[in-house]
């Protein structure tokens, strides 16, 4: 068998884990809503056995202790640095006792030992009224999923098919009235774009109702059930197209800044392609690493961006990819991670794409995650995002055109944007 290039080694994977900036717990995969477009819902092939699992605090604490031990080893290269502890679901507040125990444990046992902690939660806000005091007390950064006004939000229904809007809006206002400063500082929104809302509508709704702008997510276009493809196409909306439908797209772009798909895209383009962007002091001192040493695709290193812990204790590089890509398994008394095997697996993926990426004009700024490539487990895998010179030029021109329309964006992005 042909020897493949060792882009990463087991010790690297261990180092990525020891220095990971984020741990996301899928607190439970159960949810009190049943949104039409949910990744676990009717549009998609059943990949992940979602059977109302609740992650146990003992399992999470076992893993936290494991990571904390890594901080005492040479694999640790960070200190005084922030680690974000995120609670995700399903609906995380359906397993509130877990959240409470984990937060208490971290504050009592781990704070100050090489790391500082911030807590995040992504919630549908249905149970917000019950638990908001705790979240405020622990300075949670709250990301609320809401698709706009009552009509916009009408795909977000409960298991009886009843719309969630009234209840959610009531809870948000409760939080806002009781803790106005906190709401201002720590509460943000997340909207899925579809055929019942649009970016201009979302912009206006959130600006008027809360003085904020939401992050915009698209519908996931992988793993759609064969018989639902048509429904999907009807429901799906492309963010940039949605934005450009408005007469006031310029104003919206400026308001939403990086949350606007166009502004966000140009920021990403500049940060990835500008010769004047340097990641860190070593790059300034010794020069940027050669493209030949860059790993193929734009995939994050295993555990390099975060660790996602599923409700049944699987470890994944993030919440956005299928559970078949698990990298390890934890229980309340074991942690099973084979660093060498993970490195080998990634090196095999890289080998499949090495040649394509080399010839791709977007290789410097690639953000393609290899786990989104349908054939990644097959012997031959083609990247849909491949750019030849022409497609790259088109892409580049689109970004430059945005800058020509918004000249001040260039210095703003170069001076202010931190890409994490």
């Amino acid at each position, binding site marked *: 068998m042909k020897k493949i290039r060792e882009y990463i080694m087991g010790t690297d994977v261990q180092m990525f884990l020891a220095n990971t*900036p984020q741990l996301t717990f899928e607190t439970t995969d159960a949810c009190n809503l049943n949104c039409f477009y949910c990744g676990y819902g009717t549009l998609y092939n059943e990949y992940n056995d979602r059977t109302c699992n609740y992650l146990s605090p003992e399992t999470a604490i076992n893993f936290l202790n494991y990571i904390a031990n890594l901080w005492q080893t040479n694999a*640790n290269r960070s200190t005084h640095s922030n680690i974000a502890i995120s609670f995700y679901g399903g609906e995380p507040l359906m397993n509130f006792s877990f959240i409470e125990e984990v937060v208490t444990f971290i504050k009592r046992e781990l704070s100050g030992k090489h790391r500082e902690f911030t807590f995040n939660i992504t919630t549908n806000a249905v149970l917000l009224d019950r638990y908001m005091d705790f979240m405020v007390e622990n300075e949670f950064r709250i990301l609320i999923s809401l698709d706009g006004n009552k009509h916009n939000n009408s795909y977000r229904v409960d298991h009886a098919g009843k719309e969630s809007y009234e209840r959610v809006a009531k809870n948000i206002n409760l939080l806002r009235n009781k803790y106005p400063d906190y709401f201002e500082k720590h509460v943000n929104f997340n909207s899925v774009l579809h055929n019942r809302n649009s970016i201009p509508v979302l912009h206006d709704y959130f600006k008027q109702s809360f003085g904020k702008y939401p992050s915009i997510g698209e519908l996931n276009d992988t793993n759609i059930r064969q018989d639902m493809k048509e429904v999907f196409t009807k429901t799906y909306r492309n963010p940039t197209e949605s934005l450009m439908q408005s007469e006031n797209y310029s104003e919206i772009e400026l308001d939403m800044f990086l949350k606007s798909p166009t502004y966000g895209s140009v920021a990403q383009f500049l940060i990835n392609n*500008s010769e004047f*962007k340097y990641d860190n002091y070593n790059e*300034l001192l010794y020069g940027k690493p050669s493209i030949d040493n860059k790993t193929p695709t734009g995939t994050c290193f295993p555990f390099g961006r975060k660790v996602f812990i599923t409700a049944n204790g699987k470890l994944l590089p993030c919440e956005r990819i299928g559970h078949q890509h698990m990298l390890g398994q934890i229980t309340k008394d074991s942690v099973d991670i084979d660093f060498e095997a993970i490195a080998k697996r990634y090196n095999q993926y890289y080998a499949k794409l090495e040649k394509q990426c080399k010839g791709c004009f977007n290789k410097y700024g690639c953000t393609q995650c290899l786990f989104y490539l349908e054939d990644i487990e097959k012997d031959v895998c083609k990247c849909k995002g491949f750019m030849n010179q022409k497609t790259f030029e088109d892409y580049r021109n689109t970004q430059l055109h945005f800058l*020509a329309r918004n000249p001040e964006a260039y*210095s703003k992005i170069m001076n202010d944007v931190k890409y994490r």
Partner: protein
Amino acid sequence: MLNTDKLIPPKGIYKYWFTLSKNVYVSNLSQGALLLYNTVNGQSFESSYIPFIEIVKDIHKPENLGIIGLKPSIEEDQQCWATLQHCIEKKIGLLINVEEGKSKPINLLPILSLQKDIDKFTISGEQDLIGHNIMSYLTELNIYINTDCEQSCPLCTNYHKQVNSCFKGATSTSLSLKLVETILNQASNSSTKNINILGGNIFRYSLLHELLALTLKYKYEYHFWINHKNFDEETYQKIASLNNHTDIIVSFPLGKGSIESVAKICLGNDRNTFQFFIETEEQYNYVSELVETFPGIKYHVHPIYNGTNIKFFEKNIFLTREDILSDTISMRKIFCNQKLNSNNFGSLTVLPDASIHANLNSKSIGDINKDSLLDCVYAELVQNTAWRKVRNFEPCNRCSYQYLCPSPSNYETVIGKLNLCNVNA
């Protein structure tokens, strides 16, 4: 519904678009004169002509995105027009004819975007982002294992404040082997490649053999620093037999044993380097002759300030405009000079009393008995005793060469003059 009409300038207003090459660094836009420097061809050009300075300033306004329109009347201002032409000849500026109906071009001029910029994190209150993955910044360690030495070089206490050198302490101290091993072990997850072992006289370190055994266990490039006066062939051979480097300091006055005999022993091993410390031109001439008699000898020459040889420094070390511009300075180097001190960044020194310094002229940032190297790297990044000292002080901060000049070095500190140049005397 993209509207591009407003990107097209009204007919007849502008005759030319003027821009600068994206390789051009512009210095001191706020002062009465400015320097334009092409970082690829090394050409530079200074101007204090106000209308031209205004043009360059306008080009840099965010709303102009690197390019401005020039009206036909520009050609009537002969001095300005000549200056523009001069810019173009030096490949510093570019003049483009305005084509009717075509939108204004853009040019993405240099703006440094340093993602993990500590100053920015501090200003934005995101201090918790400073300490992530910082061990990779550590690239070099100087470990002083003892302070013992039987020599009495007159400048003993001066050398190490200027260059890598031995120095002897008032009292005899040495770093325990255990601490040395702790350091070597902790550095293994950094980017450290070179480890300098220094003293006093390191050949007198009682556990030198054990220390040499450690060099087999922890893989780095080890440099053992010994003054030629303390050179001893047998110990040298042991160090060399383990593929370590030996750096032989030759300071004046020379020792009794002839330097030639040391050179003969060390010649032929390219891991050996002679480090000549010179204070005068005579010494320099002596060294020049000496090295000529040993073809292939590896050596460096370091000027040493002895308190009385400022003239020697003024003549040979102080920078002139020509010196500064003699090599092409890349944009990265200029950015680098704005953000960090390339003499110091990445290097830590551990002294026999266990104190840790980012530079031997700066205060201690830790104690290896209780602080890890990681703690010290963090402390240095936050406290900035040396690694990020740049030319942001008088008079450099009002000089056009501020970031074209190399980072401030130990000489500035020791001489007590912040600009070692003939530009701003």
